């Protein structure tokens, strides 16, 4: 079965939409969208979405379940972290571990309530949504007159989560950064070639040589472009490394491992999964424990970027993560969705956000546009699937 050109377009509609939207904003902003500074900005602004949405995707796979509490948890954990690092002057490494431990304890409790007590996830997390915002605000207001704790002085912390690798000045070509880009591009192309050769050798269905080469060239070009832009913007943001690790990790889990497969089958038909020997309760437990851990990573990244903990931190994060998943083709009913799709979805939303800001569109209208995009993406997805049936 050869894929037709039309089929390739259909499989990658969101990617094409992303490119078109990006070109549109580049045109409307007179090229500002394409500048090294805004490339860097796009990554650092949206890092939290990529990380948080990776966890949200795992929850949604289990049957369209979501976590409403993660945004508030970011506020609460941020307040605790900032309090210990800035006010108690605790060693940042210990503070980081402490935040992780709190997240794990909370994740275990939440996972237990959902998986073993059968509390519907949206209710169990609605409680956290309310409680953590209150707790976080309380910590902040009782330790600071302004209701905000700055971590500007904790430089080692900022360096880990909001620094730059191979830091140089803006506008100067950063050679190590470019070299890293070239190495990654070569690795990706090599992997494509090896994968195809393996498939052909074993007689499996494989892309044609031309398609594989075309794909490799495109992928390498995108990687090199990003590397070049970042090289001109002063180096690789450390947060990109964090995002990369998280995304690659969950991509590996969902595509290659038995536990990842179990997430899909639990979402596809929970009873069938149970009767096939899948421990469905444990999967639910892991989904929400994992979500809490991912939220901790998000907190580190956000605290690093904002350089302060305040009571509005994490507002609507849960909605951003859900939107990224849904726009990226993750099923709202569970059982289907890929990390790659989520990344495209998150990037698309990020591009729209940044583009509209650069165009100085009123913030209220920005919200309207985002809502319409979300609805449009899902409607489009459903309609295109219906037609292909």
């Amino acid at each position: 079965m050869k894929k037709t050109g039309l089929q390739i377009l259909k499989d990658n509609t969101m990617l094409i939409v992303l490119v078109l939207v990006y070109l549109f904003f580049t045109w409307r902003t007179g090229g500002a969208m394409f500048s090294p500074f805004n490339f860097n900005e796009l990554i650092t602004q949206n890092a939290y979405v990529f990380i948080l949405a990776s966890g949200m995707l795992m929850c949604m796979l289990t049957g369209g379940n979501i976590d409403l509490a993660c945004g508030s948890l970011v506020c609460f954990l941020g307040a605790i972290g900032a309090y210990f690092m800035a006010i108690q002057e605790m060693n940042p490494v210990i503070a980081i571990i402490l935040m992780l431990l709190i997240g794990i304890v909370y994740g275990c409790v939440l996972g237990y309530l959902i998986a073993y007590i059968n509390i519907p996830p949206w209710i169990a997390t609605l409680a956290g949504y309310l409680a953590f915002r209150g707790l976080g605000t309380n910590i902040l207001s009782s330790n600071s007159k302004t209701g905000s704790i700055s971590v500007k002085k904790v430089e080692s912390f900022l360096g880990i989560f909001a620094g730059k690798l191979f830091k140089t000045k803006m506008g100067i070509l950063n050679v190590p950064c470019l070299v890293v880009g070239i190495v990654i591009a070569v690795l990706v192309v090599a992997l494509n070639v090896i994968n195809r050769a393996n498939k052909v050798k074993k007689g499996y269905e494989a892309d044609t040589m031309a398609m594989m080469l075309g794909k490799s060239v495109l992928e390498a070009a995108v990687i090199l472009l990003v590397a070049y832009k970042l090289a001109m913007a002063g180096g690789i943001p450390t947060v990109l490394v964090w995002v990369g690790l998280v995304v690659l990790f969950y991509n590996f889990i969902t595509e290659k491992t038995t536990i990842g497969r179990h997430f899909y089958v639990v979402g596809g038909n929970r009873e069938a999964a149970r009767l096939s020997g899948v421990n469905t309760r444990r999967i639910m437990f892991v989904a929400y424990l994992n979500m809490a851990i991912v939220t901790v990573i998000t907190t580190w990244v956000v605290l690093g970027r904002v350089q302060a903990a305040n009571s509005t931190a994490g507002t609507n994060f849960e909605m951003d993560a859900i939107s990224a998943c849904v726009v990226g083709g993750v099923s709202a009913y569970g059982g289907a969705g890929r990390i790659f799709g989520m990344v495209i979805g998150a990037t698309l939303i990020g591009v729209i956000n940044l583009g509209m800001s650069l165009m100085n569109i009123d913030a209220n209208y920005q919200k309207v546009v985002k809502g319409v995009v979300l609805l449009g993406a899902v409607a489009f997805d459903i309609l295109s699937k219906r037609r292909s049936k």
Partner: protein
Amino acid sequence: MAKILLEMKNITKTFPGVKALDNVNLKVEEGEIHALVGENGAGKSTLMNVLSGIYPYGTYEGDIIYNGEVCKFNTIKDSEGKGIVIIHQELALVPEMSIGENMYLGNERGRKAAIDWNTTYAEADKYLKMVGLSESSKVLVKEIGTGKQQLVEIAKALAKKAKLLILDEPTSSLNEEDSRALLDLMLGFKKQGMTMIIITHKLNEVSYVADKITVVRDGSTIETIDNANHDIDEDRIIKGMVGRELTNRFPKREGVKIGDINLEVEHWTVRHPLYPERTVVNDVSINVRKGEVVGIYGLMGAGRTELAMSIFGQSYGILAGGTLKIDGKEVKLKKSPTDAIKHKIAYVTEDRKGNGLILSQSIKVNTSLANLDSLASHMVIDKDKEYQVAEEYRDKLKTKTPTVEQLVGNLSGGNQQKVLLAKWMFAEPDILILDEPTRGIDVGAKYEIYCIINDLAAAGKSVIMISSELPEVLAMSDRIYIMNASRMVGEMKASEATQENIMATILKSGRGD
């Protein structure tokens, strides 16, 4: 000669890439019961969808002539307006609503926005009487059994002033008693002048109730057989359906050596998960030997599925007592299917769509699911191996599909059943419990499933086959257990069993209570 009420002339319906109906002709006389038979996917349902306007005029070729005029239906409402009412296989009732509300759903009594509930319930009660239901129309649908729900569907159709009633597999979820009552009700309607089309897989019902039988095969009408004397031979119908003489509906199993007792369950008692005061399996003892096929026969609700699922790692109900021995050694299974699988027990469910398969996933994913760990090292799945395994079982079970990447939801019932069997065969069990392995699949696929069962027995597996089809149990089993009202009421060798003495055993046990 009676008047022709409905004539479908040269109907052709194409879907992208498939010709679902090819020049189909169907003539139904006024006041007759006309049976439509054919294998799954032969085009029976498509034909009825064309008739009822689900596929609107213009999307098919050919003419529908009803009551002397050419009809161009665009929606179901159009065809219902003419008195053509279809009752689908899957009941379309809202459980939380009353019978009356359901009957007039979308057809509400009253004026404009306001519903006249008095008229609704009064009329509903009238039609309920006609179908022989004594329930009030104010009772909620969820409180009555499936058999009665089917009657409510018929009452609902009558309330729409049906002249031509189409019943799609009306007895597929009913037990024999309810089925018989329903068929007799149809005969009663016939006397009053109603015309009916019945689609069914149960050929004994066809010969009992139908005046004429039209056979559909591969999208074409093959023949219309006259059955005015209700004496048609089932083999005669099957011949038309499969296009060849099936000299033997059940393949022979020969030369299989029956070995030692493999699984032995004694005094097994299970209580209902929500109402622990109810005993669903009462002091049941069974055993099965290596290479043996043991049939468990019983009517629906006898406790067969509950027994099977309870043995399979207590996946149903609360175990209140009993011992389980494998190869003579007592085993205490934990309350998890995983533990049962580890002890080489497999349970192949009766409800393949509900809790057997993951319809949104591929054949490959479904095949490997119960034994995924064997394809993985350190939790990383070897996808090449997984693909090979799926291919291997596709060949072995002759599953019809272009590729194992195909979604299971797109397969026919028979092929889905094969994927379900493949999943459990790949789990390499010693003991297989097959719950209604041939439910809702056509004659050809049934034969292939029987062959698979024979192969399993020949490979030394112990097979427990639960079924409510007597001919199947009689032909396939070495030994037969008979279950009724939560108890095991009889055990006999297949060679000594007949339909009569099995039914007699059940009836006698019923009187004892």
